[in-house]
């Protein structure tokens, strides 16, 4: 009984923020609600006796992904991240259609796999997971690693392009797009020469 009530609570804590993610008008609020959704998912993992997955969910999704999204919001949005989501009616209709389609697909998938057990009979240990990752799934793991590396490099390239110069290193040579700030006396002597 108590288990069902608590599942209900967690399910609500998962669905309601999920709903808010879609409806929130403020990007930062969206990120916040998304965080709640992801954290609730972690709680669900714990209830399924998969604590390793829960911890990873917290570290990677709630921790890492949210941080990245914050960076995205702060770097792209103007006026302190208060970018509002476009809300035209045809977009709404399109979004709704998409949501209904996705929901239908998921519902079909769920109704058709009736043999899935509520929780695995013997909980998968961390060691098993580790062994799996480094043997059977090694290729996928490595491909993912390469992909992430590429993403990191791309991010650095994008970030460097917008660099205005930093206190510790002179970026004059690496940024052709923006001219470096003049040293105090360079400016003065330029004016003197002019």
């Amino acid at each position: 009984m108590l288990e069902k009530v608590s599942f209900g609570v967690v399910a609500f804590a998962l669905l309601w923020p999920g709903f808010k993610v879609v409806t929130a008008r403020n990007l930062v609020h969206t990120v916040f609600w998304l965080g709640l959704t992801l954290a609730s998912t972690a709680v669900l993992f714990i209830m399924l006796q998969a604590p390793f997955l829960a911890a990873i969910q917290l570290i990677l999704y709630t921790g890492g992904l949210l941080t990245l999204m914050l960076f995205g919001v702060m770097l792209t949005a103007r006026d302190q991240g208060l970018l509002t989501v476009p809300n035209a009616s045809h977009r709404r209709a399109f979004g709704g259609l998409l949501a209904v389609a996705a929901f239908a697909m998921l519902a079909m998938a769920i109704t058709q796999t009736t043999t899935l057990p509520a929780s695995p009979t013997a909980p998968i240990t961390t060691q098993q997971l580790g062994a799996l990752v480094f043997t059977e799934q090694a290729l996928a793991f490595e491909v993912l690693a390469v992909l992430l590396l590429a993403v990191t490099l791309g991010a650095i390239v994008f970030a460097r392009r917008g660099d205005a110069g930093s206190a510790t290193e002179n970026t004059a040579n690496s940024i052709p797009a923006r001219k470096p700030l003049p040293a105090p006396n360079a400016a003065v002597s330029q004016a003197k020469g002019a």
Partner: protein
Amino acid sequence: MALSTEPGLSAAIGGGSGSVSKSRDGQAASMPTRAFVPDPYLDLARYQADADLLTLSFGPQHPSTHGVFRAVLYLDGEIVVKAVPYVGYLHRGVEKLCEKLSYSNVTPILDKNDYVSPMCNEQAANLAFEKLLGIEVPLRAKFLRTLLAEMQRVASHLLWLGTFAIDLGGALGGGTSVFMYCFRERELILDLFEELTGCRFHYNTHCIGGNRHDIPAGWPKLVHETLGTIDARLDDYLGMLEHPIFVDRTRGIGTLDAELALELGLAGPLARASGIDHDLRRDAPYHIYDQLDVRVACESGGDCWSRYKVRLDEMRESIRLARLLVDNVPAGPISASKPLTNVTQFKITTGQTYVAIESPRGELGTWVIAGGKGTSPLRMKIRPPSLHALAAVPYLFPRYTLSDAVAILGSLDPIMGEADR
């Protein structure tokens, strides 16, 4: 600019600026002449001003603006792109007030200008008045004034060191520890001033013609002991302060070169840190500095670290001078003029003069035009070193981060009381 009238200054510039004449004639022609560039960093065309830059109103109510200084910072991320300083939040109209007060009443008002070294304010004004009146201060008073000035320099630099440490280390960290130690030492000096004058802060101990308070019995011995204690204790915690973190935060930060320092009219420790070997105590002696061998501290880096070094060396030198002076105070009267009995005792009907002394922050000048009824100055202008130091803000802040801006402002050691007057 007041500095350019000082003979020998241009010749005092260290190596590295070949365009400056090395002659000692001190003529204006030998000074580097440049068009004044009001704002060399107004290069906002590269930015979409409202999107790329964060405009930060830094002060006047900010923990590390040393009072009520305000600078509008244009930040690209954390990096300052442009800084516009605003002064005047502490403007008290002192110069105008001095026109209303009689000559004898000006001194206590000026104490509040540079409230970290009030002795020097008093000396600057009284030296000017004495010059106009043609009064020669007795030797004992000269010694006493020199001694007080040097002790005040130690106290002032101690306060600077403490606040600089706070700027770097935060109000809730190791910076506060250094701050507290510095204040502990500074209090010892203030105790001595209290013994002598009866006040810890706004002394009103100098008067036209000399000093108002004579040295009490046993005081010289106390001075000796106290300064010895401070000298020893400084070693105690400088080891802690000069941590690699401190070096990283100060070395190469806020570089100010000699040419720009001259252009802005900087003097004192700021100029000396930039390689301008100039000290009024040695180059235009007053009091009894002509009889003293003042070893002027000079560095060439021009960064926060050099400014720290210069002030520290100065502190040590001042301790040495003060201990030397206190043993040699001659007997005699401490005032050349009759004790004050009347508001209008001193009358100066005509003439004008400019007198500058080396305050802990640099050249503190007083320009007095006498006239009118003769009981009060017709016009009085104070040249505060802090105001000139703040003029360096737009040149020093850009290219550095907000954290460095705080450190740079701290290293400039501005006292808003005297900058705004």
